[in-house]
């Protein structure tokens, strides 16, 4: 069974990754998970300086999902290089470093520094970050800024450059098209959906920042629709993300057009979900008589004359 795939100049051993912010820096789970069985690890988002993150409460359970407002707590790029990268280099899997920043220049600085390091296979860019220049509105909802970040970073690296898109926009495929034109090798679809939870009795929001990011199985239908929208209109490899708990969920993402998937929130239920899913996809493909998991990519049997925003809802 052919399980792997290639992006730019990097070969990944399979199509299952763990999503940024849901697997730490890989070292926390060394006793529980055979990370060598993953296609790769997306690290927690890194910024130039360490970030404390938001005050508690940072998480709240919601129906079939959770809300988070971690505030991108992270150790900063220097501590990462010093303390985490040496360990990550010993792992038998690919390391994709996820980058978050509050200015275009900060994205460039972080990537520039990391690009010189050994043992990093690619970059995933989290654009769901407040742009301080624009009053803190997220880069990720501004198509021009997203494209600008992409082209600036493209100039800095020969490694795979993956832009992680936010679902909180009307037309996600326009963003995918823009970053493709700006030189991205792939897009990750999707980050969390803006959501909110309230305690009726105390009248307080359940997370300290009032609103936060919704993840988990609750958003799987939304994520599938976003991946499908991108796959239908832009020719670019997609990492499908959102609510994947099982191999069957992952196959659904491949069918609608994802070249690979990432496991996020499910890691909090079981950090070895990625390994189980990778094995599960393989046996599913075997049962279906396939020779290459890639045969599932985009293999949905659907009417093609239907646009996601054209329905009577």
């Amino acid at each position: 069974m052919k399980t792997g795939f290639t992006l730019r100049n990097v070969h990944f051993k399979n199509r299952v990754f763990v999503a940024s912010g849901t697997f730490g820096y890989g070292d926390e789970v060394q006793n529980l998970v055979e990370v060598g069985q993953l296609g790769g690890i997306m690290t927690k988002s890194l910024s130039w300086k360490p970030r404390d993150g938001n005050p508690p409460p940072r998480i709240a359970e919601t129906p079939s999902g959770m809300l988070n407002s971690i505030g991108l707590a992270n150790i900063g790029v220097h501590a990462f290089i010093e303390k985490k990268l040496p360990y990550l280099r010993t792992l038998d899997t690919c390391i994709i470093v996820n980058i978050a920043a509050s200015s275009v220049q900060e994205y460039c600085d972080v990537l520039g520094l990391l690009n010189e390091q050994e043992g990093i296979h690619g970059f995933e860019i989290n654009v769901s970050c407040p742009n301080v220049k624009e009053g803190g509105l997220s880069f990720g909802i501004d198509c021009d800024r997203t494209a600008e970040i992409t082209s600036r970073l493209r100039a800095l690296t020969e490694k795979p450059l993956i832009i992680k898109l936010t679902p909180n926009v009307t037309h996600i495929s326009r963003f995918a098209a823009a970053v493709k034109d700006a030189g991205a090798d792939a897009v990750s679809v999707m980050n969390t959906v803006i959501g909110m939870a309230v305690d009726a009795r105390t009248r307080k929001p359940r997370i300290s920042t009032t609103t936060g990011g919704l993840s988990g199985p609750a958003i799987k239908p939304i994520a599938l629709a976003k991946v499908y929208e991108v796959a239908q209109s832009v020719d670019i490899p997609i990492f499908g993300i959102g609510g994947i708990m099982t191999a069957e969920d992952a196959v659904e993402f491949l069918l609608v057009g994802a070249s690979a998937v990432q496991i996020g929130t499910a890691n909090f239920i079981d950090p070895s979900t990625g390994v189980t899913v990778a094995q599960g996809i393989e046996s599913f493909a075997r049962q279906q008589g396939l020779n290459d998991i890639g045969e599932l990519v985009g293999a949905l049997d659907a009417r093609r004359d239907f646009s996601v925003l054209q329905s009577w809802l």
Partner: protein
Amino acid sequence: MTLCNADVTGVREVAQGVYVLSFRNPEVARTVLPGQFLNLRVHEGLDPFLRRPFSVYRVEKDVVEIIFQVIGKGTAILAGKKRGDVVNILGPLGVPFGIGGEFTKAILIAGGLGIAPMPILGEHLRKAGKRVEIFVGARTVGQLALHHLKSPHVATDDGSRGFHGTVVALVESYFKEHPQTDAKVFACGPTRMLEAVSRFAQASFLPCELSLEGEMACGIGICQGCPVERINAERRYALVCTEGPTFDCTTIRLREA
């Protein structure tokens, strides 16, 4: 650390809405230390969705026990478990209480379900040669779960049993009669009680460890969901799951309730 299904050996109601659930798991039974917790998945479905953290209450041979109050969906499902059912466990997790050190007497203070880690803690302390004095508070007598606690001092808010008042007031009155210098305080319970314990311990110049709660997703340091604010530290937050749940009371700022 293990992540697996464990066979439930029984569930019993030990006070109003308070249950003890026991399950077999030799690895946890062998390795768990007082103050550590388990992150439990109550069943395979999506509702409830996240794991639920519980302190280890007692260990007997291969059997591990937790004690809990039914407050929502997860605990309701746990209370309905029967011998032969399974729970999925992840643990033992977290930093245990520091039971080594110079002190000779241990003052254990529990409010409500804060008694959870006390039986196993008392046992380990005694094994380590410490004298143990335990103080337990509850709103009313029906909510007291005093099983497996050796001659506890009891306080109830409504005076329906023991001292009439808070457990911290009881500790203070006890200290007036029996001043202690060579003691260490261990406390678990609601935030307001922990604040009072912390003030009391610092005023009495006694070392003091608190066991904290906080919303958790993973329990193993990968979600960053469980910060507690630190005092005068370079990093502003510590994680309750991996740097706690037990903390020296002088190092952290308790969250307002």
